[in-house]
C-alpha cells in the first residue's frame, strides 16, 4: 500500500485510514452524483488551465479558464494529470471518459445500483447534443453497451419531471388504473413479440421492457411537491445556436430542481459534444468551438471561461438549495464533477485531462485544494465516484487499476 502511494509521486498528502477497503466504509458518503460536461478539451498548450498549489490552497492566473470559478474556491478540487487508459482522440475520449471502455458509464453504473428508490434512477440533460443524431461522438453515457440519450428540450424535461396530473385521491386512483391497464397490454404485446424472436433479436427489446418497468414504478410516485418543485420554463427552440446560453441556464435550473425535490440521485448535464459544430455566437465568435480548440488561442480561452461560468452557475444553484434528505445544501451532499473528454484540445489527446471536483460529497471530499496526479489513470477517479456513492467497487471496469483516487478526502 505504502509503496504504491509513494509511487504516485510527490505532493500527495497521506491520509489517515490505513486500508483502502476500510476507507469506503469509514468515510461519509455523497447522496447525489452530478456530472457536468463541456467538449473539446482545454488550452494546455498555452497553459491557461492549471492552477498553482499554495500552502493555503491554490491560485489561478488572471485570465485563465478556472478564474470565473474562484468565487467557489472553497468548494473546488481541480485535478490535473489524469489520463484515459487505452483511449485517445475525440471519439475515443468521449467513449472512455465515463466508461473506461466498459459497457456502462459511471453514472448509469451507479444509478443501476442505488437509483431504485428514486422516481428516476438517473436523469440526463443535454444542450444541443443531437443535431448529428446519437453516436459515439454525441453521447457520453452508456447502459449495457447502448447509448443513453439526454433530453435536449427544457420544455420536455419540465413535463416529464413536473407535469404530473393533479387531482383528488379518486381521480388519481382512476388514472393509476388506466395507466396500469395500458401498461399491461403494452407489456403483453411486447412479450408476445419477444417470444417469437431468437436470442439475438430478443435482446433488442430488453431496454424497452426495463423502460416499461421504470414507467410502472413511476405510476406510484407521488406528484412532486415542495418549494421550487415546479420551476416554469419558457418554451424556446432548443436547436437554435443563439439559444445555447438560455437553454443551458434552463437545464441547470431544472436539474437542480429535480435534485432538490429528491426525484433522482444521479444527474448529468452535457453541453454540446465532442467536435460539435457549436459556434459561440453569443461571445462574438464566427468559428466553431472545435476549430477554436485547435487554435488554442484567446478566443478559445474566452469560450472555455464561458463554460467555466456555467459550471459556477451550477454550483451557485446547488449551494442555494437544501438537500431534501438533510445534511446541508445540495453542494454539501453531492459529488459534483466537471468532466472533459480530452486534455489539450488541439492535440486531441486523452492525457492530462482536466477534472474539477466540487462539493463536499457528504463530507467525504476535502475541497479547496488542487491535486496534481500526473500519470494516474482516470479510472481511479471513476472508482472514487462509485465509492463516494456508497458502492464498494475496488476498480471501475478496468481491473488493472485498483483503488480509488487518493488524496481527494
Amino acid at each position, binding site marked *: 500500500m505504502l509503496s504504491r502511494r509513494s509511487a504516485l509521486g510527490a505532493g500527495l498528502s497521506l491520509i489517515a485510514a490505513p486500508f483502502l477497503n476500510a476507507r469506503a466504509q469509514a468515510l461519509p458518503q455523497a447522496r447525489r452524483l452530478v456530472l457536468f460536461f463541456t467538449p473539446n478539451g482545454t488550452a494546455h*498548450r498555452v497553459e491557461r488551465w492549471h492552477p498553482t498549489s499554495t500552502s493555503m490552497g491554490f491560485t489561478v492566473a488572471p485570465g485563465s479558464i478556472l478564474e470565473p470559478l474562484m468565487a467557489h474556491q472553497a468548494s473546488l478540487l481541480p485535478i490535473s494529470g489524469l489520463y484515459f487508459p487505452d483511449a485517445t482522440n475525440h471519439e475515443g475520449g468521449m467513449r472512455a471518459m465515463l466508461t473506461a471502455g466498459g459497457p456502462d458509464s459511471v453514472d448509469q453504473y451507479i444509478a443501476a445500483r442505488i437509483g431504485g428508490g428514486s422516481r428516476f434512477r438517473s436523469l440526463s440533460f443535454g444542450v444541443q447534443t443531437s443535431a448529428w443524431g446519437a453516436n459515439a461522438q454525441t453521447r457520453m453515457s452508456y447502459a449495457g453497451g447502448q447509448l443513453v*440519450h439526454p433530453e435536449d*428540450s427544457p420544455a420536455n424535461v419540465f413535463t416529464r419531471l413536473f407535469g404530473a396530473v393533479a387531482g383528488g385521491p379518486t381521480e388519481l386512483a382512476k388514472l393509476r*388504473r388506466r395507466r396500469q391497464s395500458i401498461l399491461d397490454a403494452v407489456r*403483453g*404485446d411486447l412479450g408476445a413479440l419477444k417470444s*417469437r424472436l431468437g436470442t439475438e433479436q430478443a435482446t433488442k427489446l430488453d431496454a424497452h421492457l426495463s423502460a416499461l*418497468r421504470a414507467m410502472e414504478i413511476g405510476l406510484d410516485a407521488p406528484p412532486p411537491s415542495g418549494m421550487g418543485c415546479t420551476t416554469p420554463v419558457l418554451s424556446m427552440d432548443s436547436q437554435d445556436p443563439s439559444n445555447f446560453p438560455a437553454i443551458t441556464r434552463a437545464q441547470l435550473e431544472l436539474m437542480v430542481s429535480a435534485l432538490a425535490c429528491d426525484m433522482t440521485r444521479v444527474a448529468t448535464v452535457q453541453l454540446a459534444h465532442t467536435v460539435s459544430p457549436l459556434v459561440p455566437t453569443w461571445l462574438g465568435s464566427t*468559428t466553431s468551438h472545435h476549430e477554436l480548440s485547435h487554435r488554442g488561442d484567446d478566443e478559445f480561452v474566452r469560450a472555455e471561461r464561458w463554460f467555466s461560468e456555467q459550471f459556477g452557475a451550477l454550483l451557485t444553484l446547488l449551494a442555494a438549495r437544501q438537500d431534501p434528505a438533510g445534511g446541508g445544501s445540495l453542494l454539501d451532499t453531492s459529488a459534483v464533477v466537471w468532466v472533459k473528454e480530452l486534455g489539450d484540445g488541439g492535440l486531441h489527446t486523452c492525457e492530462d485531462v482536466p477534472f474539477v471536483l466540487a462539493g463536499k460529497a457528504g463530507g467525504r471530499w476535502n475541497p479547496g485544494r488542487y491535486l496534481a496526479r500526473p500519470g494516474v489513470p482516470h479510472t481511479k477517479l471513476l472508482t472514487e465516484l462509485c465509492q463516494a456513492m456508497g458502492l464498494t467497487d475496488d476498480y471501475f471496469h478496468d481491473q488493472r487499476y485498483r483503488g480509488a483516487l487518493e488524496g481527494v478526502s
Partner: protein
Amino acid sequence: MRRAVLVIVGSLALSACTGMLDGKKDPPTPNGPQLTACFDGTQRTPVTPPPRIRRLSRYELENTFESLLAGSGKRVHALLPADAVRDGYDSDAELLRASELYVDAVRRLSEEVSAQLDANTLLPCGGSACADAFIRDFGARVFRRPLRPAEVPRFRAVFDVVAADDGAVAGARATIEAFLQSPSFLYRTELGDTTSTLTNDELASALSYGLWASPPDRALLDSALQDDATRAEQVRRLLADPRARLALDHFAEQWLELERLDSAVRSPVLFPDDSPALREALRREALDTFANASTLSAFLTDRPATVSAPLLPVYGASWGPERAGVLGLGAILMAHSTSETSSPVHRGKLVRARFFCQSLPPPPPGINAALPDFVPGQSNRERFSAHSTNAACSGCHRLMDPIGLGFERFDALGRTIDADARGEVLDTQSSVDGTFDGVPELAGKMAADQAVTACVLSQWSRHALGVSANAASCGELGWLPSSSAPPATMRALLEVPFTAPNFVRRSAPSPDADEPPVPDAGTPVTPTGVTTRVRIDSDWGAGSCRTVFVDNGTASAQTWTIELSKVGTITSLWNAVVDDSGAMWRFSGAPHNVTVQPMEGTSFGFCVTSP
C-alpha cells in the same frame, strides 16, 4: 502574417492513413472488390438476411403519426430523442432501440394524439357493443396487419377497465394509447413465417417504409408481394408516388450531408447574402435534383436550364462552365465549407466517402501542424500545402485535398470565384485515377465509373435496408444481387434492394405468429427436470419487479407450473397466470408459453408491493 495555428477542418485532419486505425472495430467498409462484384456478372449468391425486428426511426414515426392525425408528426420530432446513426443514416436496424426517455415520450405522444382523435368515428355506436370491432379496425390500421386472436382480448381489457370508470369513449381513447405504445406499432418485423418467407404484411411495411418512410396503403397490403414480378410492379408504383419524396429526400439529406446547412455559420462580413431563406432554397434545389434525376450520370453532370430567383445570389443568371451536376450545387458546396472559406478537406472527403465508399480514419492524436491563418482572398492551394509536404499529414490528406482543391472555383457560399481548380484523384481503385480540371471534368469521370454507381447503390441500400456497409455490398457478407451491368436509370438503381429475390427470404424460420389456443391441460404439476431462476430486476424498498426463468431440462415438452413463496402483493404479471389462493403463489404459463419444448426455456415477470 503567419502564426502558429492549427488547421483542422471539421473532424478531419492529419493521418498517416496506412491502414485500419483499430482492428477491434467493425470490419473495413466496402472497397473496390466488394462493390465491383455488383456489376461484373459474377455468379454469386447474396446473403439471405436473418430474421429481425426494426424499430421505426423517429422520422418514420413522424410520418406514421402524421398519417394518423395531421399535425402530429412535428410533435414526434419535438418529443422523441434523436436516433442513433451509423454512416450518417438513422435507420440502422441494430442501433434503433428503446430507452426510458423514448418510452416516456411515446406515452406522452400517445396521450396527446389519442385525445385529439375523433372518438365518435372510431366508436360509431358510442358504447361497448362495438368495442371489439373498433379494436380490430384501429388495431389493424396501426399494426399494419390484422389483429391476431389473442390480441383482441388484450386490448379489450384496457377498454373495459377504463370504460367502467369513465365511459366508453374514455375506454376507446385509453385503448388507442395502448396501441400507440405497443411494440407491434413501434417496431416492424421481418421475421418471416415457418417457411422462412416474409409474410405479405411484413413485405408491405418493408416496401412502404423503405420507399415512402411511411406506413403501407391498402393497395400494397392487398398485393401478393412474395411474387417477384408483383413486388417489382409495386416498387415502381411506390417510387412514382409523391410520397416517395419522404424517403428520397430523407436519404439524400443524410447521404449528401445536407444537415450541415443547419449548423453552418457564415461570417456576415464576408457573406452578407447568406440567410435562412437562401439556405432553404439551396436545400430544396438539391433534394429536387436528386429526386428528379433520370440517371445517375445526369445527377452527376446535368446543368439546370434556368436559375430560380432565390438562387441568383449564388449562381448569377445561369450556371457558368465551371459548374456541373450535384457537385456544383450551392447546397453541397456550402455544406462542405468553413465559416470563412471553402474546405478542400470536406469536399474531398465527401467525394471519397460518399461517392467512392472509401472511409477515412479520424485524425491521429498528438500531431500539431501549423498552417497559416485564413486571409480573405488567399489561395487555399497555398494554405494547404503543408498537408502535402508534411509526411505526417500527407498520408491521409493526399486522399482528400487533391480532390477538394478541384472545387476551388467555389467559395463558402457556393459562388463562383477566380481560383486555380486543378484537381487530382489518386488511389481510388477506380478508373478515375488521374488529374482533372474543375468539377465538370471530375463529374464526367465519376459518371463513367461503375465504382461510383456501385457506391451510390450501397449508400441507398444502407439507408433503405437499415444495414451496415458490409451488408449493403456485393461482397461475401453482401445482401445485394450481382448483375452484368449497372442499372440504366436512377429509378432502376433505387429498385435494386427491393426487387432482389432474397428480399423476401430469411435465413431461419420463425414461430407461427398466431399464438396457440389455450390448451386443456387439466391440473398441471411441476414436471421433474424443469428448473427455475428468479432475477430481481429492480427493488425500490416498497416493492420490486422480478423475472422468473423456467428452463425445461428434460427430453420432452413440458407444461409447467411453479410455486414461489409470497413476497408481497402482485400488482402486475406478464407471460404467466397466478393462483394466489394457497400459501404459495402457483404460476403457470400464459397461452403462448404454457408448454416449453425440450431443452428450451421461457420466462415470465411480475411486480409486487412489499407487505
